[in-house]
């Protein structure tokens, strides 16, 4: 059998099939669902960041119009707490309990103690959303306030308020990676040592769609259905059925309707999910809950939040010999479903980025505090890593008086060294960092910045340029390898392809789009591999009833995990068609050709059969050998041998107003390498969105808590998001280094470009101020901070 290269659909910017529906406003999000008899739930979140609850009076609420049920923790005594499934790997760790001996997270409703503002205490179900919201306000809670801690470094100090009985000193884990001894030695012997104290501030992902959930219990069958804005319906099904509700797996279906963005927030289990299911059963009505923006900000996982002391050692002539990071990671009040892993491995193992460093060591103190749980934020862990490394490299370059580009060039991992063991736990698959780096500098016009700086000065502006490179581990992942990282579950992906008798194709995958155009790209992969028109391919996902298992969408994994699963399944379809073809054409199997969606005997294309004809023939199954089963229906479960490691170089150019300290990003160049790209239109969109997200963190975004643990930035009036006028058009370029770890050669792409922008812009700002001796400005880089740096006055803003 010969399988000729079929079409070259992959790599083409074909139109996005989802877009029409979205542009007409016809897509259905959770908030748009209405089921007959649906009732509405509202949640009462704690007013205090830490308090004992001495009593809850629900009588007034229960008497309000339309109220069907008021429930507190006591109503759910038999329900297990939510679990945590990504723990810091390889070290001792402490968690709230779970009855199965697993790491626990939080109860569905908090009963005795609340641990952050917004911690759910009670729920009301009523006929209308307004009635439910009004009744929630009528619940009276008797709080006994307890002392509060909101910073990880303070939470582990002696005498700090204690959040969980099972977690002494609030320390979830002390986690390390790398070679401490060698790092310390190299640092002691280094000719030059530079250090920084960094705050990678907490941010709020802020998808435009707040989360929501609809629970529907069918009394007739005993089946539960959860409709939720989730990026991982299969995971949620598993965790909810087995580890929270304790109901048969077969009784729960999870469906994600269209999801309005996630960026890492919607892959988690949240109390509202079991609550709508339990209350639907109790009331025998569908129960719907939709969050508000303020609710989201006080309950949906937040990102980043590391306080770090970082050190770099090197020679006078520019060779980096050691990097060391001590980090205090703030996990929030309860471990989110995967938060502890994000805060440790994803950050720690990534700190040396693109550089070939002799020794590196990272230690993380992951601690609980009275804040919203920490989760992933687009680029999670890796963005924190890139920030510290790229800031260090710039400081080092300044210290030794060498151009920051030259220092980077000198230390990049050579292309000959792949696969490259970074000494921290990652083995980089493939790359040509030099090519990528030089391309970015060239596109950005790095060589002639001096002229631009002088020109800007003439206009009262200080121009600065900043470079940031990164390597972003993606493609989670190899299940065994992930288990070593503390993941309590498999992380493979799957695909089923069913060819209908008419030749149309149904592709079902376990992922779940949150705006990444999965239908387009997965149809494109299948059509490319099968040599057929993508319009004949229908993609199904995000419904545990329709789709095979899969882990959903996170960590830029969908194309490099579900994509290969589709390609491998298509191969099975083609193989089977060819075997049938051999029988039909009466030639040996190796004489059957499959090309451009046609199957024929070698040298006799004329009498071949089209894909659709073959599909029909196999559906009828007339005169086909017994050992070839009827129909075309194949499934693959893909577990890659290792991760993939996209990388890139970004160059930011900023202008600073000398009078006001305002920073404007005037040019931004990004050269990213995501391996082979399936649809550049989708990837460019992801990169543009990612960079903008990163610019948000460095210039304006910050989740701020006051000393009592109230989130000050709890709505969009107080938490700034980038707007259209805050960004220029970006200049995008790419290099292509396929990964050997999957048949498409594809690497992650969805979030990678969020990793370097904060560092690139921070470097650019410091560059613009370098003649003033400025060495660092904390994020978000507000006009006032820059103004103070311009005037050499410190002192925090109020």
């Amino acid at each position, binding site marked *: 059998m010969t399988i000729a290269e079929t079409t070259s659909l992959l790599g083409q910017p074909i139109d996005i099939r989802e877009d029409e529906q979205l542009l007409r406003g016809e897509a259905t999000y959770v908030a748009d669902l209405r089921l007959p008899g649906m009732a509405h739930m509202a949640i009462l979140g704690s007013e205090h960041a830490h308090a004992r609850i001495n009593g809850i009076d629900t009588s007034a609420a229960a008497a309000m119009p339309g109220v069907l049920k008021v429930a507190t923790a006591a109503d759910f005594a038999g329900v297990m707490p939510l679990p945590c499934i990504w723990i810091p790997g390889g070290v001792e760790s402490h968690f709230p309990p779970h009855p199965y001996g697993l790491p626990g997270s939080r109860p569905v409703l908090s009963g005795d103690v609340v641990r952050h503002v917004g911690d759910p205490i009670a729920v009301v179900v009523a006929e209308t*959303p*307004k009635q439910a*919201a*009004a009744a929630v*306000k009528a619940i009276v809670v008797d709080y006994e306030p307890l002392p509060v801690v909101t910073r990880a470094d303070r939470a582990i100090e002696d005498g700090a308020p204690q959040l969980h009985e099972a977690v002494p000193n609030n320390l979830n884990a002390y986690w390390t990676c790398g070679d401490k001894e060698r790092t310390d030695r190299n640092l002691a012997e280094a000719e030059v040592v530079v250090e920084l104290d960094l705050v990678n501030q907490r941010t709020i992902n802020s998808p435009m769609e707040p989360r929501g959930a609809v629970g529907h219990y069918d009394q007739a069958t005993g089946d539960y259905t959860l409709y939720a804005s989730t990026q991982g319906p299969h995971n949620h099904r598993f965790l909810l059925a087995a580890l929270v509700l304790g109901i048969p797996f077969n009784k729960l279906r999870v469906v994600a309707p269209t999801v309005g963005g996630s960026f890492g927030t919607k892959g988690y289990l949240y109390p509202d999910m079991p609550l709508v299911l339990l209350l639907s059963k109790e009331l025998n009505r569908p129960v719907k809950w939709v969050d*508000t923006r303020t609710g989201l900000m006080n309950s949906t996982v937040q990102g980043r939040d590391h306080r770090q002391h970082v050190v770099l050692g090197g020679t006078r002539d520019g060779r980096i010999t050691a990097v060391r990071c001590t980090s205090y990671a703030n996990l929030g009040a309860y471990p989110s479903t995967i938060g502890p892993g994000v805060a440790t491995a994803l950050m720690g193992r990534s700190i040396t980025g693109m550089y070939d460093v002799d020794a590196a060591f990272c230690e993380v103190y992951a601690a609980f505090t009275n804040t919203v749980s920490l989760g992933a934020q687009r680029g999670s862990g890796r963005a924190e890593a890139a920030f510290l490394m790229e800031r260090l490299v710039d400081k080092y370059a300044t210290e030794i008086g060498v151009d920051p580009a030259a220092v980077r060039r000198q230390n990049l991992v050579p292309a000959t060294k792949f696969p490259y063991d970074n000494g921290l736990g990652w083995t980089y698959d493939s790359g040509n960092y030099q090519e990528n780096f030089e391309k970015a500098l060239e596109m950005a016009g790095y060589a002639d910045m001096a002229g631009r700086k002088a020109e800007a000065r003439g206009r009262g502006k200080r121009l600065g340029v900043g470079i940031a490179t990164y390597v972003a581990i993606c493609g989670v992942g190899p299940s065994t390898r992930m288990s070593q990282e503390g993941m309590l579950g498999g992380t493979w992906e799957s695909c089923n392809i069913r060819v209908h008798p008419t030749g149309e194709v149904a592709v079902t995958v376990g992922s779940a789009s949150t705006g990444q155009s999965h239908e387009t790209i997965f149809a494109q992969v299948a059509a490319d591999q099968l040599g057929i028109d993508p319009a004949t391919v229908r993609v199904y996902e995000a419904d545990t009833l329709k789709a095979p298992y899969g882990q959903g969408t996170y960590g830029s994994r969908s194309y490099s995990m579900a994509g290969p699963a589709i390609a491998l399944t298509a191969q099975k379809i083609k193989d089977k068609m060819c075997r049938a073809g051999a029988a039909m054409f009466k030639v040996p199997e190796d004489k059957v050709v499959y090309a451009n969606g046609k199957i024929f005997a070698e040298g006799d294309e004329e009498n071949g059969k089209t894909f659709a004809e073959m599909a029909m023939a196999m559906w009828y199954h007339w005169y086909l050998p017994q050992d070839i089963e009827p129909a075309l229906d194949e499934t693959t479960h893909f577990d890659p041998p290792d991760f993939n490691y996209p990388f890139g170089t970004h160059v930011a150019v900023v202008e600073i107003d000398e*009078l*006001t300290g*305002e920073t404007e990003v005037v040019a931004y160049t990004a050269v990213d390498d995501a391996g082979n790209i399936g649809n550049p239109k989708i990837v460019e969109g992801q990169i543009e969105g990612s960079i903008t997200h990163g610019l948000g963190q460095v210039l*304006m975004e910050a989740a701020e808590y006051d000393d009592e643990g109230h989130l000050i930035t709890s*709505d*969009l*009036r*107080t*938490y*700034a*998001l980038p707007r259209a*006028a805050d960004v220029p058009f970006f200049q995008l370029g790419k290099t292509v280094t396929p990964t050997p770890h999957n048949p498409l050669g594809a690497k992650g792409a969805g979030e990678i470009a969020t990793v370097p922008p904060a560092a690139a812009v921070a470097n650019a700002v410091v560059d613009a101020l370098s003649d003033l001796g400025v060495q660092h400005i904390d994020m978000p880089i*507000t*006009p*006032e901070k820059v*103004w*103070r740096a311009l005037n050499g006055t410190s*002192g925090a*803003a*109020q």
Partner: protein
Amino acid sequence: MILTDFDYVKPGTLGEAVALLAAEGSRVLAGGQSLLVDLRTGDGTATRLVDIRGIAALRGVRREGEGRLHIGALTTLAELAADPLVRAGAPALAEAARANGDPQVRNLGTLGGNLAATGRATDLPVAVIAADATINLAGRGGQETLTADAYATRGLPAGAVITSIEVPVREHRHHSAFEKTADRATRYPLCAVAVRAAYAGDGTAADLRIAVTGATARVQRLRGVEELLLGGPTGTGEVLAAFRAQPRDMFVPGRGASAEYLGHLAGVLTARALARAAAR
């Protein structure tokens, strides 16, 4: 979602409106771009909303005799920003209306509402004060006129409806301009400044009105700065020095920025506004 209950009434005349507003808990509803936000978040309450958008007398922009513009309170920010009479005669007011960056809010938000809104610094008051406009009010005591300076120092009397403003149209020697730094999240002013200036033949300031908001506890005219600049040049250096000479407690911190920075920012914006006014 608004959880408070209230009545909604839409009178056709000013007289009816004033009568309806007499009741405790009654509030004027104009564009709703401030009031409805407050009602949604629970920051504001009302038992009755009196929608004044049906009152024809509160609409329209027209010349009023020699050298004055009459602008109805219901004029939307979008209309103000686009109106040729306003743009020519009171450019700072048009700029201030346009400075509200959100076109949807400009389409509904009104002059009267922007001048009456409380809780957050808004853009139009500085333009009205710098322009030395007068504010026409209707209340239970009948019609009343408030000078810009009275509005700046005392604010609006409780229960009054702004019916219109009268702006002295830019005499040949007067030039005005508005400058703003928007708060990142809301786009409301972090600091906004409006100036009206007249210059002598040698380029020194012969007449000056400067109003600021955002950086100060409430919108106000900066007489201290005006006095220092009057009769001299108004370059950036002089303006910043004049701001530095103001009492320390004149500026207040807000929106994550310190009083020190906001005071400086107000100076920079004033210098920029004066430079633009001078160039007009």
